[in-house]
């Protein structure tokens, strides 16, 4: 009789496919996972605690560094919460700019996901195609606010910078190009037999499980639940535009893939409409008191980030600093289902499932 034992394998925090400093300890029986324990916190910076000693404008750069692949939506959730608390009016031009950058950001974020996901599955080229196209979005952001990753663009009551000359036209051009690019992406990867066999039926869960675990974003929609805050609780100007909420059916990695691909297309649709209706002139900053002091009370707002529902909870004592600030980070919440999904899967599927959840470690650890 051969003596066999389970193999305890430590994956990460330095591992090419954990998308950052994520660590997971897996027990392997052969190549089959019998138990998985995620270890988080390698990128914890105490954002929420730090925020208690900062005024609201100073917190905005910290939100950039949470989900660094999608900084614009993070900016928005904070300023949106403060504005709602103080009942501030945001000029239309500023709101348009915010919406345009948020949708561009969603496309950019999904492109990072698409590239890295296929890289996880072993295809090298999509990664570079996605990044070279994302580069154009970063270039647009760079023209707008002088930064490529951590933008610090939005302010309570508006945005910091107005769109430079010709910027809107360049975005229009980008949206046109990106539409054909997406078709190319589909041609290259979406129908690939190997890709299908790798992600179809992998990491499946049903709608009830997804809701029980508090999943949101594409992770929830892949199970068929039509829940998108842009539609269900319209914020910003989303109620003005026409777009669909793509949903999946089976709740596997393949449906998550399709949902995200379709979301990019829908974002471009929103962008097209927003760019058409973009107001000619107007202010980019509303009337905001010199020192921002939200009234005593608390508020919770949530918006749809590329990864799911991002929420911001503020308790104010009427001071310039929040008494308590709490972010609901979609990556963190979505990640909680991972140990459940991994049991019984092979080592190879670990990478597929983890990639399919689409986490950003800056947001998981915050």
């Amino acid at each position, binding site marked *: 009789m051969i003596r066999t034992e389970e193999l305890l394998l430590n994956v990460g925090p330095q591992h090419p496919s954990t998308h950052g400093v994520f660590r997971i300890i897996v027990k392997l029986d052969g190549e089959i996972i019998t138990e998985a324990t995620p270890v988080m916190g390698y990128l914890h910076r105490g954002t929420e605690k730090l925020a208690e000693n900062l005024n609201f404008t100073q917190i905005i750069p910290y939100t950039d560094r949470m989900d660094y692949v999608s900084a614009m939506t993070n900016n928005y959730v904070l300023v949106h919460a403060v504005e709602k608390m103080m009942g501030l009016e945001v000029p239309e031009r500023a709101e348009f700019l915010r919406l345009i950058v948020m949708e561009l950001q969603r496309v950019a974020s999904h492109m990072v996901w698409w590239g890295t996901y296929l890289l996880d599955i072993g295809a090298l080229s999509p990664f570079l195609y996605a990044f070279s196209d994302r580069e154009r979005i970063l270039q647009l952001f760079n023209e707008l606010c002088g930064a490529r990753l951590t933008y610090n663009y939005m302010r309570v009551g508006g945005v910091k910078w107005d769109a430079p000359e010709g910027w809107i036209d360049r975005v229009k051009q980008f949206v046109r190009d990106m539409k054909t690019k997406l078709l190319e992406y589909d041609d290259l990867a979406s129908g690939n037999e190997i890709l299908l066999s790798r992600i179809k039926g992998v990491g499946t869960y049903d709608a009830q499980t997804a809701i029980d675990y508090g999943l949101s974003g594409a992770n929830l929609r892949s199970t068929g639940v039509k829940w998108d805050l842009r539609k269900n609780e319209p914020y910003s100007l989303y109620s003005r535009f026409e777009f669909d909420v793509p949903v999946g059916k089976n709740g596997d990695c393949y449906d998550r893939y399709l949902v995200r691909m379709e979301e990019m297309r829908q974002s471009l649709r929103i962008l097209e409409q927003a760019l058409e209706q973009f107001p000619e002139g107007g202010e980019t900053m509303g009337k905001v008191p010199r020192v921002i002091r939200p009234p005593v009370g608390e508020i919770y707002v949530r918006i749809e980030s590329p990864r799911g529902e991002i929420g911001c909870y503020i308790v104010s004592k009427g001071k310039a600093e929040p008494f308590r600030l709490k972010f609901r980070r979609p990556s963190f919440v979505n990640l909680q289902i991972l140990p459940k999904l991994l049991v019984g899967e092979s080592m190879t599927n*670990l990478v597929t499932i983890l990639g399919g959840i689409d986490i950003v470690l800056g947001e998981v650890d915050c």
Partner: protein
Amino acid sequence: MQKFWNDPVTWGHAGLYLLGAIAVLAVVIVFVTYAIYFERKVIGWMQYRRGPNRTGPLGLLQTVADVAKLLMKEDTIPAKADKALFILAPVLAFVPSFLVLAIIPYGLNLQFADLNVGFLYYVALSGITTIAIVLGGWSSNNKYALLGGMRSAAQMISYEVPLVMSVVGIAMMTESLNLREIVIYQEGWFWHWNFLPQIVGFAVFVVAAISELNRTPFDLPEAESELVAGYHVEYSGFRFAFFMLTEYIYVYAIACLATILFLGGWNAPAPQLDFIPGLVWFALKFACIVFFLFWIRATLPRLRIDQLMGLAWKVLLPLAILNIFLTAVGIEWWGKGGG
């Protein structure tokens, strides 16, 4: 060169043979150096990049610099590793890869050893490399390396079967396993080449060969996104270089083998083109296959281990057997040449 075998061994012969071996080694090393460069360039172009272009003119010295770097690196052996096996593994991987080159006929009279069982010799020796890879994974005493080594063993053993079976059709048609005779059999127009009558065999051979080479989409033993680097994760410096060298020599060997078995070796596609030396034709066909291997790498994702095994046993093997059957029927009905 054949008559060397039959003549009595003298010092002069031994010396000539040694020189020949060194020449082949030089050719192979140059090939590996520039195959790596070519691969990086090709994949670079396919990915909107430029590839290496800094070291030397057009980046031509990039691989040389890389090898020099590997030479100068500290030679580390993990404390818990099985030292003897750890040192032995890269050598054991490299030696057979070089030995298999002895039977490759580049031209009618340009061959080291004209073995009657040439193809079997190739299969037998290349199998030893599998042992070395398992050994490397095992002796590193690293879990990732072990997983990579085990995967590699499973994969290479599985794919050797369809690889050999796919060539049986050719052996039946030519009634020989001698690589030189197989090429001579394919003389004439390009439709005399084996890849047309043996199209099923050719397809099986190419897929199985890519898998034998551990290249995308079958590069599971070193699947970077899962196993970091697979069986050679603990190797550094020149021991690592030996594994890499082995891998690329097998690319060379398999490309040669495919050229010989299926693409008519040194034969020109049309008899009118015979004035161009056979070596040029050989090199052209060889280059096409090498390019194909690199192209695949830039395009396809990776299979999962269970799917990989399924492909070998459930698809390729039945196809190869079907090919044998069809060849037999063809020979029975139309005589040799059909199929």
